[in-house]
């Protein structure tokens, strides 16, 4: 435990050191303060932006878009993964495509989506979903593959029906792997949606950053950027804590 704590302390110190270095370089004029704001001012700008309510509408838009894209990705990805696992032939065809999907920068399809669905929430939801779903499919496959056949035999020996088996045996057994996919998916959904807003949109946090950038308002830009960064870290941190709680119980030695 002490070792883990030491690692954590060093990690925090490293990050704090980097932030302090950036602060110093900005303050000393090594970095032009017009290009990069000192971190302290970024923080100030962020608090000011958030407090002023300028970002409220953008936040509602972006978070709701991410949430919809994420939920759809989790539901559809899990269903698609489960289906593929049942259909080994289809899976053999699709597997390499899934594996290479990550090399495709999904947001290049965004203009197409806008052309198809018009500017608004729909193309952003689809973009977020396109980014996030494959991770869920892959982890669902891994999770289901990892259920030992003996547990399915056990389910039958205990006379569990199909849904009971799924709920009481397959799901808990596959959960750690499923969860790592759900975690990745949240990051991908967030990246997809904000990237889309950044490229072409009338609202949202990505749009706010892009708009501030184009109007040379570096205060607003860095404030919004820092906010997005902190939200992403917080969301990921939450899922990580939850995940390790699940894992800890199983590996308790």
């Amino acid at each position, binding site marked *: 435990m002490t070792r883990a704590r030491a690692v954590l302390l060093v990690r925090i110190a490293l990050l704090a050191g980097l932030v302090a270095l950036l602060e110093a370089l900005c303050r000393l004029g090594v970095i032009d303060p017009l290009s990069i704001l000192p971190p302290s001012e970024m923080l100030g700008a962020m608090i000011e932006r958030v407090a002023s309510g300028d970002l409220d509408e953008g936040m509602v838009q972006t978070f709701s878009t991410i949430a919809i894209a994420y939920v759809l990705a989790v539901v559809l990805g899990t269903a698609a993964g489960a289906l593929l696992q049942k259909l080994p032939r289809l899976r053999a065809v699709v597997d390499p495509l899934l594996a290479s999907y990550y090399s495709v920068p999904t947001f290049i399809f965004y203009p197409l989506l806008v052309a198809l669905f018009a500017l608004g929430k729909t193309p952003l939801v689809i973009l977020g979903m396109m980014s996030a779903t494959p991770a869920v499919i892959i982890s669902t496959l891994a999770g289901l593959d990892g259920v*030992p056949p*003996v*547990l399915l*035999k*056990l389910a*039958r*020996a*205990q*006379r*569990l029906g199909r849904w*009971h088996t799924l709920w*009481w*045996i397959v799901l*808990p*057994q596959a*959960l750690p792997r499923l969860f790592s996919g759900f975690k990745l998916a949240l990051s991908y959904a967030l990246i997809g949606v904000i990237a889309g807003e950044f490229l072409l949109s009338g609202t949202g946090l990505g749009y706010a950053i892009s708009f501030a950038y184009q109007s040379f308002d570096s205060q607003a830009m860095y404030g919004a950027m820092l906010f997005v960064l902190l939200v992403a870290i917080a969301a990921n941190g939450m899922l990580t804590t939850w995940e390790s709680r*699940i894992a800890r*119980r*199983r*590996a*308790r*030695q």
Partner: protein
Amino acid sequence: MQAVVRRYAGPPPVHALGPIDLHLARGEFFSVVGPSGCGKSTLMDVLCGLAQPTAGSVRFEGNALHGEVPEGVGVVFQEDASLAWLSVRQNIAFGLRLSGLPKAEVSTRVEHAIAFMGLSHFADHYPAQLSGGMRQRVCIARTLVLRPRLILLDEPFGALDQQTRLLMGDELLRLWRETGATVLLITHALDEAAMLSDRVGVMSARPGRFIDLVETGWPRERDSRIVSDPHFGELTARLWSSLRSESMKTLGRVA
């Protein structure tokens, strides 16, 4: 079980089992030994209804099985089938909780099984914290709480060391005596079969058939100390002589 045959359609088609006729008397302890790959596990799957025979029929208490494990039959597997996300107590209660029994009854049975299998100190542990032998006890306890009238065990001690196996054998005998259940044990260990059973069925190389049925004649009150009885040596020797040529066949086929 009558004229049971099990073939796998393949490819290539495999004739795994039979024809086999077997009748288990109520309260009997029956063991099956056979060379590896002779269809012992297939026999077990067919017996408990997990697999359908290609021909023939399996009856339990007079009712034919239809691809389902009937009420009253408990199964313990060779592989570790403990549920990693549940504590020992929850593992044991697993089947009962879903059966809709009143809570008080569930907990009475579970606590009894925990004590019976010597798991009292580990009731709140998780499987990852237990040895293989302890996990197998958890699985046996989980079957036990369902009060099965027929318990099928597929090489349950296969992964355990010799000392643990002897002791687990004793516990199995105690369980058999106290529950009055019929026990069918599949094993590859001749000494285990000779020591535990009322009757031992020796299976042939694939397709598995019974080539010998040996009555051991042990008293109901027995434990692992009978290994020093001269009769134990005779029994083991007889099982081995039946099995030796079959085991050679299997090896020859592999080579």
